């Protein structure tokens, strides 16, 4: 069963990458660097820069920290990114429609606890059932958010601020302050984070990371190749025009919240697999990290632009910084949060300034070209 999943995930990854890259290859006829810059969309350029920055960060840390650049770094970061990466995708969907979901942390905590408790009491449950349970509950919670935002027209910040508290309370009540203990969980669950798809001299490409890759590619494909996905962008890009064009904006927003909840549920499952012990404060703070990943990854906070890959890169950057700072003995690990805040601010500020300049630059180039005609 597990091997089948592994094989399937490899196939999906390969296929997905092929499709995503194919379009870019066909459309770009590159003569030189300026032509490339000209033809690249600002969003893609930003993602490439982010990738470059990630490499720079790795290089920086490998200089200041001894024994930094090794297989263990890859293993640790990739396992941890698997969790925040999936969550960032859900948040990205919501932010693209010009909304926000601050309750995802609570959803992660609740689903992690619920599934953990069910598994503790019923060790015979199959993995498939457990995962579906997590996703289903997450989707349910997401639909509550979606209903209030889309149909009751309450601003998303208010709704999710409220449900953040409500869902956490739900968790506390349901758990009766009991903790889910690792000892009670089935073995396969605890083994899950260690399963490798492929290994190479200590460099482990873990199953959980593969799962994240599958989800990333799946949603990238949805956003890129389905009309539903394109409408998500449209709703965020110009809500008025969307309403005028006969979209069902509210249905679309509702569905994005459901999807976000479902992904949060999946994250909950993976959180459970990773940590085992689930207390009532599980998942606290993840919502802020997911927003940070989305913003750093280049998704416009007003929606309409940005990509899943960008959000994933944002998640990688954040997690990388966190994991690296812990090992940098010069700076206290407590700088982590302060730095995260500044990172978000810098991303938004530079986006606002640089993107505007870049667009003006492109516009000038286009009009210059036209005047030559």
């Amino acid at each position, binding site marked *: 069963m597990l091997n089948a999943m592994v094989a399937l995930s490899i196939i999906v990854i390969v296929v997905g990458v092929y499709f995503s890259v194919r379009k870019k290859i066909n459309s770009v006829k590159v003569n030189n660097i300026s032509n490339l810059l000209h033809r690249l969309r600002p969003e893609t350029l930003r993602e490439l820069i982010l990738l470059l920055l990630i490499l720079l960060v790795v290089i920086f840390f490998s200089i200041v920290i001894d024994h930094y650049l090794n297989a263990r770094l890859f293993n640790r970061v990739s396992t941890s990114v698997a969790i925040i990466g999936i969550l960032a995708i859900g948040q990205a969907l919501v932010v693209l429609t010009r909304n926000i979901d601050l309750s995802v942390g609570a959803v992660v905590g609740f689903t992690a606890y619920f599934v953990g408790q069910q598994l503790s009491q019923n060790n015979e449950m199959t993995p498939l059932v457990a995962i579906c349970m997590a996703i289903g509950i997450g989707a349910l919670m997401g639909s509550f958010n979606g209903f209030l935002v889309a149909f009751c027209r309450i601003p998303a910040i208010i709704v999710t601020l409220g449900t953040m508290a409500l869902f956490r309370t739900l968790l506390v009540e349901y758990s009766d302050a009991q903790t889910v203990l690792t000892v009670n969980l089935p073995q396969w669950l605890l083994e899950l984070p260690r399963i490798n798809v492929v290994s190479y001299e200590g460099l482990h490409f873990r199953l959980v990371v593969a799962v994240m890759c599958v989800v990333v590619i799946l949603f990238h494909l949805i956003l890129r190749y389905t*009309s539903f996905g*394109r409408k998500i962008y449209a709703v*965020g890009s110009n809500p008025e025009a969307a309403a005028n064009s*006969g979209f069902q904006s509210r249905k679309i927003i509702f569905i994005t919240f459901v999807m976000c909840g479902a992904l949060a549920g999946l994250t909950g499952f993976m959180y459970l697999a990773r940590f085992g012990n689930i207390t009532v404060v599980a998942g606290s703070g993840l919502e802020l990290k997911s927003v940070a990943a989305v913003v750093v990854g280049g998704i416009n906070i007003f929606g309409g632009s940005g990509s899943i890959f960008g959000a994933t890169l944002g998640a990688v950057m954040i997690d990388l910084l966190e994991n690296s700072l812990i090992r940098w003995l010069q700076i206290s690990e407590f700088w982590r949060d302060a730095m995260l805040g500044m990172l978000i601010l810098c991303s938004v500020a530079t986006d606002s300034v640089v993107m505007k300049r870049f667009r003006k630059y492109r516009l000038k180039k286009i009009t210059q070209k036209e005047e030559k005609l």
Partner: protein
Amino acid sequence: MQIDNLNIKTPSSNNIIDNDFRSSKPPVLEALNISKSFDMTQALDGVSLEMRPGEIHALVGENGAGKSTLIKILTGIQQANQGELRLSGLPVKINNSQEAQAYGIAAIYQEPMLFPDLDVAENIFISHQDQGFFVRWDKMYKDAEKILNDLGVRIDVRNPAIGLTIAEQQAVEIAKAISMNVRVLIMDEPTASLSDHEVNQLFRTVMQLKQEKNVAILFISHRLEEVFEIADRITVLRDGKHISTNLCSAVTKDGLVREMVGREIDQFYAKDETRTVGISVFSVKNLSKESTFSNINFELHKGEILGFAGLVGSRRTDVALAIFGISPADSGSIEIEGKLVEINSPQTAKKLGIAYMTEDRRQLGLVMSMSITSNITLASLSKYLIRFGIIKREKERKTANEFKNRLQIKTTSVEEEVGILSGGNQQKVMISKWLNTQPKIIILDEPTRGIDVGAKAEVHSMMRQLAEKGFSIICISSDLPEVLALSDRILVMREGRQMGIVESQHATQESIMSLAMGQSKESNYA
């Protein structure tokens, strides 16, 4: 714009023959006896219009003649109070823009509404209801390219729409309409923001639509030379009424202007005896702002009313915004009483004694949910403060009541919400607000727009009194009789350029209109 370099396949002489043939085709969209009123104003009064396939029907008229209202009714955004719409002979009701779209009626405005982050090709196809679940990018790009190529427009369909110029955005909107098999295309002032080159391209596109796809086109424009070049028939509206519909070949430009403007000069708008005008208090030299306006020069004298005339898109408001500091100019100079000043913000402008009353009272001029009193004192609150910034309410109320009496603002109490007043009274509140700042120079932007005849007269007499008291007034107005009657001199603008300054004594409505449309050129004397 030079007409010669327009390479269109059908020279105008062929129009007559083609038109006879076309007039035998039944109309695709008819408006019969449409009437529509808003509050006090009768926007349309028994207007009929018909559009035939493969025909370009031009609609001309001054600002406020009713063109926009008619378009809104045809595209389902508004509903007529009386009258009927017929599609291919059958009566229809168009209740919203989706229904209009379903009937094949599409409109293109001066400011297109696209999705800035989506690709051009997506923008064209995204509203289609019958798209499959999966997006076929290759097909979409190919189809979009084909449509645009057919239109003779070169836009990279793979770029996001945000980088497009207005001309390109309009082309995309047209492509969108074509992709949805448009039958009736309404174009509202499409050329107002375009360069000559872009206009040529647009006309090529339009001619193609007319000839190859038999689309019925309603073309609204102020540029008469364009109308003559491209239209088959021309309808003139004035004051909400239908004045005439003729074949293009049967009318002349002067005749059209006369019909657009012609009304008996009311005693109501009788010209004043010449006011005595004092020394120059305000002078503007070579004021320019990139892509907005250029080389504006004038002097304003004490006790003078300087009218700013021009058509929609002439950028008069932008000049005012530059003088008032909201979007300052890039170059040029402003002098007040001989001293050079730099106006970077509305606060500076206020301190220098300049007041600007906006034309958009709902969005920019008044806080609808606040009281009349609060609105009147909003720009001059510092006069009502005692220690610690406390507002003296009784003093405010006193001022508000004074204005209420002086301007005859009809309301039960000055504490009423401004939002429930009629348009005319709201305008008076706005005027009070600016008068209360005790300015030396007042810029009024369309001060009598959307208010009834009685209130208009009151506003006019107030402006005259102010001039007599020594205030200097710039009055931006699209109401020609008003401008002529009130102003001492009139500055005419067209598309950001100054066409001339005329003494109102020597001017007529036709001469101003001609200047505003670029028909003739007057020398600029300050």
